[in-house]
């Protein structure tokens, strides 16, 4: 895990990310929403809107739109720098005007085709505001000197040019900026903060699921390996069952049986936390009226029991199977026999000489399991109504929100890349041979 190795891995991830974005952009291009008149498409309430999910660039060719999106995403930008408004946020193009179903197909909405236009519009607004201020100054209400000086300060602020975004390398030709994921037409907000909050919910659920799956899967796999015969056969049957259990089914069954009035409502049916959770303390206590409350941590944990259980079932089976295979391989290895010949036995032999060398191949599982879990959480989040990436994605798909969709896919692909890096790091921790040669072959 030398820095060079890390850099090489990151560079290799770039074509993968490009490919992912290209595939999704092409898919959106293939979207028949504008032309398809299938009854199903008409059934969708927003079918007509979808024709112009991207009202800023309505009739540009695909390549142009894709390149523009890439340009915004790239930290290195060419061209005029973006401007920042008074609050320091980037001047975004105005959100599309929502229009009724059945709007004419060629309606392009308000279409300022560049950020410069948006900035000009903004400047006009400022000019109007400044004129109003000036008119106010003449009014007899502003008697005190303090009032006047405040007004003057405002006016000075307004007349200053809009500050530029980013860091210029060659002024107004080449500049550095944070990647801009664009604007969600669905939520009317920039994509990046939406993704950040959704990603944190998804990561919370998935990391917990992976952790619990490993916690349960490794011991069962080890048990199956050291107890051949009926125990192994039983565990194997149970694990194939768990592995074949569709997440959809386990989620729906658990929810209907354990979270709804029709069953035994032990757990909350939806959400990541109770509505009043943000006001709670972290730990159990009493609220200002003296009513006992569970505290934020317990509340979230209580909400996460069912989703995490569903997600971790299949992962548990996979981890357990791999642990069993790796442990069997180690048990047959010469070095275990040599360790037994030195007098090692029992738990020390199992943990140090069987489990520990078996961890290296298991580390690679993280790279495989994590994306699978994230995929599974699309279902889970929609069943349990958790505000994560899966829900965001589905909402974005239904609304054909192009920037939000691309942002979701890029984030998920980045998470996959991160998971494979994490797997390499774990493998290097577990196996000195990888650590010293700097690659895992």
């Amino acid at each position: 895990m030398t820095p060079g190795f890390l850099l090489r891995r990151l560079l290799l991830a770039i074509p993968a990310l490009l490919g992912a974005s290209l595939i999704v952009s092409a898919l959106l291009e293939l979207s028949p929403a504008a032309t398809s008149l299938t009854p199903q498409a008409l059934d969708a309430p927003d079918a007509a809107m979808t024709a112009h999910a991207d009202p800023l660039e309505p009739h540009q060719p695909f390549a142009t739109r894709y390149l523009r999106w890439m340009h915004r995403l790239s930290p290195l930008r060419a061209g005029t720098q973006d401007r920042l408004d008074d609050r320091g946020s980037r001047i975004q193009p105005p959100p599309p005007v929502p229009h009724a179903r059945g709007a004419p197909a060629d309606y392009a909405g308000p279409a300022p085709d560049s950020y410069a236009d948006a900035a000009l519009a903004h400047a006009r607004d400022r000019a109007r505001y400044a004129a109003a201020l000036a008119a106010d100054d003449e009014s007899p209400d502003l008697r005190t000197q303090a009032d006047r000086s405040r007004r003057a300060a405002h006016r000075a602020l307004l007349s200053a040019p809009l500050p530029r975004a980013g860091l210029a390398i060659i002024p107004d030709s080449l500049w550095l900026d944070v990647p801009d994921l664009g604007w969600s037409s669905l939520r009317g907000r920039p994509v990046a903060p939406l993704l950040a909050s959704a990603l944190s919910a998804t990561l919370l659920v998935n990391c917990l699921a992976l952790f619990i799956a490993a916690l349960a899967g490794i011991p069962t796999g080890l048990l199956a390996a050291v107890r051949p015969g009926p125990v192994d056969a039983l565990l194997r049957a149970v694990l194939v069952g768990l592995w074949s259990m569709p997440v959809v089914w386990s989620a729906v069954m658990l929810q209907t049986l354990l979270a709804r009035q029709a069953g035994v409502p032990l757990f909350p049916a939806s959400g990541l936390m109770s509505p009043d959770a943000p006001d709670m303390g972290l730990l159990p206590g009493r609220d200002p009226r003296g009513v006992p409350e569970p505290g934020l941590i317990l509340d979230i944990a209580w909400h996460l029991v069912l989703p995490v259980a569903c997600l971790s079932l299949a992962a548990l089976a996979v981890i357990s199977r791999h642990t069993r295979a790796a442990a069997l391989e180690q048990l047959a290895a010469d070095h275990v026999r040599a360790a037994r010949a030195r007098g090692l036995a029992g738990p020390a032999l199992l943990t140090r000489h069987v489990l520990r060398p078996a961890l290296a191949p298991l580390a690679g599982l993280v790279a495989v399991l994590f994306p699978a879990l994230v995929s599974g959480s699309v279902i889970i989040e929609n069943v349990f109504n958790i505000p994560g990436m899966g829900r965001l994605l589905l909402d974005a798909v239904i609304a054909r929100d192009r920037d939000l969709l691309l942002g979701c896919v890029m984030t998920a692909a980045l998470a996959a890349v991160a998971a494979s890096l994490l797997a390499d790091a774990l493998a290097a921790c577990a196996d000195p041979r990888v650590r010293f040669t700097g690659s895992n072959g």
Partner: protein
Amino acid sequence: MRTPASRLALAWIVLITLVAAFAPLLASSRPLSLAIDAAGPRHSPLLESLDPLDWTLALAAPLLIGWCLLGGPRRVAGRAALASLLLALGVGAASIVQGLTPRPPEVFGDETRAAHLDLAPRWTLVPFSPAERSTDAPDSFLPPGTRTVTATLSAILPAAPELSDSASLSPERLAQLTQSLRSLPLTPSERDALERDLAARITPGAALTHSDLRAIVEHHTAALGRVHILGTDARGHDVASHLIHGCRVAVSVGIIAAAISTIIGVSVGAAAGFMGGAADALLSRVIDAFASIPVLFVLVIAAGVLPRQPHVIMAVIGCLTWTGCARLTRAAVIAVRSSEYVLAARAAGAGPFARVTRHVLPNALAPVIIDVSFSLAAAIVIESGLSFLGLTDPGSPSWGSLLASAVKDTGSPVWWLAFAPGLVLFLTCLSYNTLGEALRDTLDPRSRRHA
């Protein structure tokens, strides 16, 4: 292939495939034989509704089974596998054709149905079509075992709200009730018997409770109507019928998506492994790019923006899940490529294409064959997930959409609505995975690697 578990798994898969082949005959509200006029010609609405592919499948399935069983005990397994493959491909074709061509509307309108259909004998296992909505309770689900007539009664009987436990009926209410009962599909003699019974009990001044009344009516109509074995979903669709017709989508999605992904995967993997060098590096990067995409994310997008047709879903699943197969093939081909017999073929003058197809691939396919079984299960799970999310054709019945109706449409979700479709989905995945395990034990590429 010899363990009891793998035999059960194979039996389940054959069963599911047969159910898919016979689905229009197993679950349909159309009677086998019916005369609208007593004097008129007899129709067979059930048989008339079958399209040519349905006919082909229904006729081919018994022939194929006969062929399997006549082959003697030793060949049954192999022939059964081949036959179910052929059937599944047929089912896939049928489901694609159905997706492309809209079904003709139901022959009989509502009045005709009320007059004739409910009484006509049905010879189908489940006497409901998947598209048919329960006329009894169109907007709420019915629990398993509900009779359609019982539901009708429930609709009629509360029409006597003043009927408390000790009240008697006013003559106007009685006339109203009798009028409602007249609409029940009874033969004239049965109707006479019911009215006689009612008249005997409903005398002025006599106490008649609501439950008495209901008992009398139910006694006379007990044999009528059709049973929702598994209940209905919230929109009044029969669950059992949905389940049976959903087999078509599941079986065909599994086979066709797995076939597409295997074909792409084997070609790309074999090309990368056999050519080596720059081509290998390039193709490996392509595989990496596809593998790093979170499959379900792109699938959700594709299913959401592309036309919602079964064949599109199959193609999309196939086109996005081939990377595992490609990696397996590439590794196996690289292992086989350098062996002596491939060198010998080269020395004998075989060209690269002949070397790959005749010498390399047959010896490198064992891991791929095992992988196919697992990817069948994966494709079925993915399809059910997509239809659960409402991203597939809402007109075509599928197990996932049944599961969705258990949590989404009803006010208070019920576990039994999700139980049957989920169990069938689970058993199908379990069967394919068990078969894969059995294949792995038989072919055992790992022991080969270590040898």
